[in-house]
């Protein structure tokens, strides 16, 4: 608890230069030994906005709310133009790239499995399946009868 028995104000009340009462909404989350934490939140959001936001939340959720506000405030001070949105944009790009790589790998599996199925079907005529491109595989599937006639292995 930031409000000590000796009457020492919390970081918020110190910065705001006011008396820190036992009901101070900020005291549990902004101890006096970390003045920077409240300073940055106050700079970006303002003490009265933070107070209103915390008062609207159940007590057990206020700690998480303060943590996320501190995180967001730090991001906005580091990058005044983009704030947290810069990180979100970067992460969304990462998600898109990974999803694309996943789709490619899944398509590759399907392609090879289809090649193998076709290879089994024409194994007696030793029809060769070759190449790892879908276009080549489709061409081969379309010309399977032709392969049988012109086998290299008979």
């Amino acid at each position, binding site marked *: 608890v930031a409000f000590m028995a000796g009457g020492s104000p919390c970081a918020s009340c110190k910065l705001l230069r006011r008396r820190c009462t036992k009901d101070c909404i900020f005291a549990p989350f902004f101890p006096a030994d970390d003045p920077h934490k409240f300073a940055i939140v106050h700079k970006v959001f303002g003490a009265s906005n933070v107070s209103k936001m915390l008062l609207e939340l159940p007590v057990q959720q206020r700690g998480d*709310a303060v943590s996320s506000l501190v995180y967001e405030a730090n991001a906005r001070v580091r990058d*005044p133009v983009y704030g947290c949105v810069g990180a979100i*944009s970067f*992460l969304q790009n990462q998600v898109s790239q990974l999803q694309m790589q996943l789709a490619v790998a899944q398509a590759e599996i399907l392609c*090879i499995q289809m090649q193998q199925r076709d*290879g089994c079907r024409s194994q007696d005529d030793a029809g*060769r399946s070759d190449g790892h491109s879908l276009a080549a595989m489709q*061409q081969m599937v379309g010309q399977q009868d032709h392969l049988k006639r012109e086998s290299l292995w008979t």
Partner: protein
Amino acid sequence: MSTAPASNDVEPEVLEEEEEEGGGGNPRRCAACKYLRRRCGHGCVLAPYFPASRPRRYANVHRVFGASNVARLLQSLPVEERAQAAETMAMEAQWRVGDPVYGCAGVINRLQEEILATQCELARTRAQLAIVVAHGAQQAPPSAAPPPAHSPLPAGGHRVAGMQRQGEQQDVPPDGPFIDPEEFLDLDGF
């Protein structure tokens, strides 16, 4: 941005004020000055970025950041960067209004979880791909020579290289050729 939580906390007086504004108010007030019920002068810092047509957008920003903080932050930036800053602040405010506990930190958290999950699935799929490729190499007929890498079939449906290999069948090991290592490693490259 794909994430857009619902914002349903517009101050009622903002909408009412718009309806009441017949001939008395300045129709050219920006959303900020309308919200604050003040005159919108030519030098209003917020006017270019918070048009009257989007009152909820400013209401969210006001609720989360406060008018003076927004104005101070925009004024501290070069003019060419202010529009982008206003837009990102509006986005963050919308996320905070939609999720009062975590705001955009919650969005970041969810994206990081999605990245981890997709990375796991990608690793699993690539491992499966390696197995399928190895299985295919083992299933190849014993007399078949290893295929050249990335050589699609010509239009005639047969390969000239295959005819050249006909005389080399006895050099192929009886248990079938294995996939060329270079070809196997190249399967990852996209």
